[in-house]
């Protein structure tokens, strides 16, 4: 009886492990873009990326002031200290225009074009 339960638990744990490993492998096939932030502006302002694939966004903040890179529609936000860079992971999204901005500066915004 107990042996049976333990065996079942091991099978469940094993399959969970396999699923985790699979999702990790998928995570490796991700796209990456690089955004630069200087003088309160993003560059490029409207980067294009392929749809339905996980994405890594590298944000380089060249200003001395800290900024908060944020996109409500992409579900990301991260503080980027002055003169430094940060990496953000974005989950796979459908095609469309996704707004992003610096939460500390209303005027600095751009769009991620997902096609």
């Amino acid at each position: 009886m107990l042996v049976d339960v333990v065996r079942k638990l091991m099978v469940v744990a094993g399959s969970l492990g396999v699923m985790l490993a699979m999702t990790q492998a998928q995570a490796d096939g991700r796209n990456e873009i690089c955004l630069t932030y200087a003088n309160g502006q993003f560059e490029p302002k409207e980067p294009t990326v392929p749809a339905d694939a996980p994405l890594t966004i590298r944000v380089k903040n060249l200003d001395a002031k800290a900024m908060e890179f944020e996109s409500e529609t992409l579900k990301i936000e991260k503080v980027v200290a002055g003169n430094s860079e940060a990496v953000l992971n974005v989950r796979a999204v459908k095609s469309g225009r996704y707004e992003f901005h610096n939460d500390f500066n209303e005027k600095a915004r751009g769009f991620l074009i997902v096609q």
Partner: protein
Amino acid sequence: MLAALIIVFREVFEAGLIVGIVLAVTSSVPYRLRWIGGGLFAGLVGACAVAAFAGTLTQLFEGMGQELFNAAILSTAVIMLTWHNVWMARHGREMANELRTMGQAVVDGARPLVALATVIAIAVLREGSEVALFLYGVAATSEGGGRALLGGGALGLLLGVAVCLATYFGLMRIPPRALFRTTTVLITLLSAGMAAQAVFFLARANWLTSFDQVVWDSSAVLPEGGVAGRTLKALIGYTDQPTVMQLAAYVGVILLTVILMRLTAGTRAPRVIAAE
């Protein structure tokens, strides 16, 4: 100036709600202001430290330091809130029923306040570090507009305090006996929401990517970034695109809290449960 006001207010809003709830939860506990003040102070000191080392924190764990830091402190808050609820399930009724003869309860009462003070510290730490970074950036430029921006920031802070007081006095209008039940529900949902947010940060760090399918998308009806969405997010952990894993964490924390509360309340006073 208005922009600075909005930015600061947006950050302190959530902390204001949480402090207001804790004030209401502890309304019958003596010396609570010391604990709450201590939590606020620790949170502010922590916020400044996090702001000062924001760059270093970001680079930790292969660039995922912020995400994992957030997940860690949110998980701590979940544990503290659950602990508080479970402790209150055992002692809360005694305290509510015998408000005047607290005696030992006062001494015991100090214990869950450690948990709630930690929760306050964490709320202030999370929101405060962003305010500190923003205001530091403003002060560093210190051009003509700098002073007006700082003024806007100060007004935003005051509005956050107003939210805190409004939450507190709103909850205090509830009769004491119903208040206990209300705050228990509020704290449970608050903690479930924080657990879901912790899962969110783990997913962003690529540490927990299983079951990350979005269950529903209500961003068109009730966007997370809007006023109502933000309030619900702070109070009950609302998100407009929850994943399977987030929902599982949410429901899991609620179930765990209910089970633990029943177990601890049951060992001491089974009659109370039976009477309900």
